[in-house]
């Protein structure tokens, strides 16, 4: 299973290294999103609205992640390559795992650009507790991408997939968004509230475990027409 997942991941990385289409569009969208919010929430004196930074970071992550999910599976739909992957003898759950790993890497790369940008524009001390911030981002990204990858794969053959993906994805990932925003906001307090952040990290871990198991379990039956 690990071998197949890594092959799928390596394939996605090789395609992206050649085309750079999804990385550029996702980054451009995420950066634009943060800039628009900065015009709205940073006052003329350069003082941002208090407590806005955490929400803006996670909104940009969710919006750009949704865009990337759609594009990744659009690539598999074009030329029906997903069908060819599903016809290989390895576990279909491994194909899901490979696609998920690719999405997580892409989203984390976007977050690596977004986080310092939001920290700079909104004067947010994101790096006061770097380990906890990384834990929140990584776990939140896994939770969001685990649900998103499953839904994007399910919707790949529907004509209204671009509309349906966010409609289905956002309600289910509300716990991830709440945990991410509240946990990050707790770290931005002065002094940082580590206990509250740890509580939200625990909730994200539980969410990730439940949805990863569900997605790995249901991917094969859901992908059979």
């Amino acid at each position: 299973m690990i071998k197949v997942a890594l092959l799928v991941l390596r394939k996605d990385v090789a395609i992206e290294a050649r085309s750079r289409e999804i990385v550029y569009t996702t980054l451009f969208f995420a950066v634009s999103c943060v800039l628009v919010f900065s015009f709205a929430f940073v006052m003329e004196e350069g003082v941002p609205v208090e407590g806005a930074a955490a929400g803006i970071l996670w909104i940009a992550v969710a919006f750009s992640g949704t865009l990337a999910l759609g594009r990744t599976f659009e690539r598999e739909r074009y030329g029906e390559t997903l069908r060819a992957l599903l016809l290989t003898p390895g576990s279909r759950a491994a194909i899901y795992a490979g696609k998920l790993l690719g999405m997580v890497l892409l989203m984390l790369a976007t977050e690596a650009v977004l986080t310092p940008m939001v920290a700079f524009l909104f004067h947010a001390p994101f790096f006061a507790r770097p380990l906890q911030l990384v834990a929140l981002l990584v776990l939140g990204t896994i939770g969001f991408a685990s649900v998103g990858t499953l839904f994007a794969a399910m919707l790949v053959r529907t004509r209204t997939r671009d509309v349906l993906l966010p409609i289905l994805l956002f309600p289910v990932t509300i716990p991830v968004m709440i945990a991410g925003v509240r946990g990050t906001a707790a770290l931005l307090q002065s002094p940082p509230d580590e206990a509250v952040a740890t509580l939200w990290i625990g909730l994200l871990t539980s969410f990730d475990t439940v949805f990863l198991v569900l997605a790995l379990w249901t991917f094969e039956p859901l992908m059979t027409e």
Partner: protein
Amino acid sequence: MIDFTSVQLADVSRHFGRRRAVSHVSFTANSGDIIGLLGPNGAGKSTIIGMLATLVTPTSGAITYGGRPARELGGALRGSIGLLAHELSLYSDLSARQNLVLFAGLYGLDRDGMIDQALAVAGLSERGDDSVSAFSRGMRQRLALERALLHRPRLVLMDEPFTGLDDAAVATVRTRLQTIAAAGAIVVVTTHDLDLADGLVTRVAIANAGRLVADERAATGLRARYRSLVGN
């Protein structure tokens, strides 16, 4: 890989909502057969191919591979099936070689020499490192055929394999299909081109409106027979 010498569809139907794509289809394909699955657009040919490939589940009826159902054989059965669909299932941003290496890995094949040989058979030895997006339809078709046959499948499913090929490439594909059938594979080919099917297929299954209206040994005068059953 699972070894089997026959595939049987027994009273198989597939409905998509209220639409009956395939209705009560039965036939048996044996090792060495090249079955021409013919019929007009919407006859249910691609759905039958999808069900044989285990990608589409029948609404009712049973499909067995060497007498055993797909559910019993699990993922290993997929390692015995090769599918060339109308869409070619190639990554256009990867090179021909990268496409073959990826699928060789996914099928758990030993790649030594295999990739170069497949590129040579596809006539792409000189273009192996070029991106597939730079290939003509015919070159992609030949590459997709070799990708589908890379793991030497027992059941070879070809949905319109001659689309976009010039005469020389058509002759190559015909010879290739005859060779793999002679080696013991079961080959099922859908095509609209009755002239191409004539002389290639050993059995003819004609579908119309989701039903199989003929399942017989191939004989001369295929076009006349087809017209008598389906019309123009």
